[in-house]
């Protein structure tokens, strides 16, 4: 269990920056998600911490001690690979015991530790199996047990659940989080699955083109994305562009490029400056266009529009609404009767959900 510090590291492949002056500190026992599209640098960062990638300049420290010159096998890390990389010629027991046996730990000490790990990942009784005789979820757990048995200082997970189907993935997410809490190990994981990042992480960092776009707790990053990229990558977002147009009580007004205005609680730049606003589709709902909002209610935004498409997906319905520009609105399926295309609607949302972002 360690604090891991990454201090101003960069890495270029053929002059393309995979990591561009990245610094991050991973707290002791923290579950940290690295999120971003492929090629954004998240995997390069993970592999730099593991020691497979040698960064140019900067430093990586475990508990304050530089590990730059420490080869992978002396870094005392645990890693779970995307396709698990279980040793096909060894039993489950031997796979988990590998890290102990290369450290020349006596067989009599190895067995109880392996058994305890099997118990932790709920695989007791399968120790004689070969990896290929296990299901995907079971293989994933063997990989986790194998990585944890040596009591590493940090646990690195490279798309750990990517190879599993959706239901199993959700189940494993809960289990992974439980095991991580139980062991209390600093865990850094890479994913391109936003839901996974939100579910598992204490904090997340969003990467784009080798740089960190935003770092924070999942709800902070989701509710208040700082840039259009962050808003779009983590969840869905509707974007509005316009110009700052003064204040309206404690709210800021933005005159939209296509006419109309919306309100936000975020601070605005000087009047006339361009502004981009992001609004999550689930924060929007439909009001009755015939009935204007009651006076004195919390300020809300209203935009008149026409339903263009309704996509029914059971518990929720996704609408595409034309308000001059096209918006996406997520609605809970309360009435069992989706609105038909052509239906006139009043799209409304609370002013606090208008998030000002950098374009």
């Amino acid at each position: 269990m360690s604090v891991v510090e990454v201090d101003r590291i960069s890495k270029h492949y053929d002059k393309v920056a995979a990591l561009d002056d990245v610094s991050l500190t991973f707290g002791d026992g923290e579950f940290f998600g690295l999120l971003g599209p492929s090629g954004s640098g998240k995997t390069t960062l993970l592999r730099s911490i593991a020691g497979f990638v040698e960064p140019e300049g900067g430093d990586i420290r475990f508990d304050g001690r530089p590990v730059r010159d420490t080869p992978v096998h002396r870094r005392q890390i645990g890693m779970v690979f995307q396709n698990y990389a279980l040793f096909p010629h060894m039993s489950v027991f031997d796979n988990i015991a590998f890290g102990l046996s290369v450290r020349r730990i006596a067989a009599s000490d190895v067995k109880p530790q392996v058994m305890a790990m099997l118990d932790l990942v709920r695989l007791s009784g399968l120790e004689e199996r070969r990896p290929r005789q296990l299901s995907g979820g079971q293989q994933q757990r063997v990989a986790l047990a194998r990585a944890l048995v040596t009591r590493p200082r940090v646990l690195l997970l490279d798309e750990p659940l990517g190879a599993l189907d959706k239901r199993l993935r959700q189940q494993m997410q809960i289990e992974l989080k439980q095991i991580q809490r139980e062991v209390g190990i600093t865990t850094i994981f890479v994913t391109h699955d936003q839901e996974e990042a939100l579910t598992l992480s204490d904090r997340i960092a969003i990467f784009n083109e080798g740089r960190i776009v935003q770092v924070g707790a999942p709800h902070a990053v989701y509710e208040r994305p700082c840039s259009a990229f962050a808003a779009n990558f983590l969840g869905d977002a509707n974007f509005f562009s316009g110009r700052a147009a003064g204040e309206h009580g404690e709210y800021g007004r933005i005159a939209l490029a296509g006419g109309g205005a919306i309100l936000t609680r975020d601070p605005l730049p000087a009047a006339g400056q361009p502004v981009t606003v992001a609004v999550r589709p689930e924060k929007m709902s439909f009001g009755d266009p015939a009935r204007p909002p009651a006076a004195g209610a919390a300020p809300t935004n209203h935009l008149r529009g026409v339903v263009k498409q309704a996509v029914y997906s059971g518990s929720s319905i996704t609408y595409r609404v034309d308000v001059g520009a096209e918006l996406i609105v997520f609605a809970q399926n309360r009435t069992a009767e989706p609105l038909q295309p052509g239906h006139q609607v009043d799209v409304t949302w609370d002013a606090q959900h208008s998030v000002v972002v950098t374009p």
Partner: protein
Amino acid sequence: MRAIGDWFVRGYLGLVLVFLYLPIAVMMAMAFNRSPLYELPWTFDTVWFVKLSENDVLLRASLNSVLIAIANTVIATALGTLAALALARYEIRGKALLRLLLFPPITIPWLIIGNAMLVLFFWTGIGRGLHAILLGHVALSLPYVIVIVGARLQSFGTALEEAAATLGANPWQTFWRISVPVMAPGVVAAALFAFAVSFDQFVISNFLAPPGVSTLPVVIYAAIRKGFTPEINAISTIIILVSMGLMLLFARFYRFGGER
């Protein structure tokens, strides 16, 4: 309909097997036939095996063939495996070109390669003889070994070795405990191939064999040109039985190329 299709498939499979094994079966039957002229009726006799045991030329050639095949297998497999490892795991200048250059030796007719080798060996003073034959066989088997072992290595990528490193295994431990066992089925398959390339080899051996010293295929060819000797059927029968036995033994331990 289904039954007809089923019978068709079985019949087809049967024909393929007959096509493959009938000549071998006839030859083996003739090895035990008393008549030296392949005459029927077939009468069981082991006379040709007795004669074979007295045929020094054939026996010495067999011994040569086996020894060269074994030496070739050991040398080509060792060198080829190391080359495959280097190609798969290290950044080498001109790697793509090296990989590409592996294939022409497989496709160029042996007759041409044999001729080229004879010229080269003559010119460099290596000359002809068992040493030259061995050298030729190694050169011929190497591309096969590299391609077969390389395919095996490629199918596993570097993830297993990386995993071992994260678990604290030093490069030496990783090589012996992970790379070697994972490569093993590919190496065994490659070794069998190398053995077969050498043991089967007529063309190149014929070019490089000086008068009086030779390998089995060359001697068999020379003997057949002079007229049939059923002793050849006898030695062929022995070879077939031994090689089939070996194949079964290996198949017991490895599924070639695939997962163990």
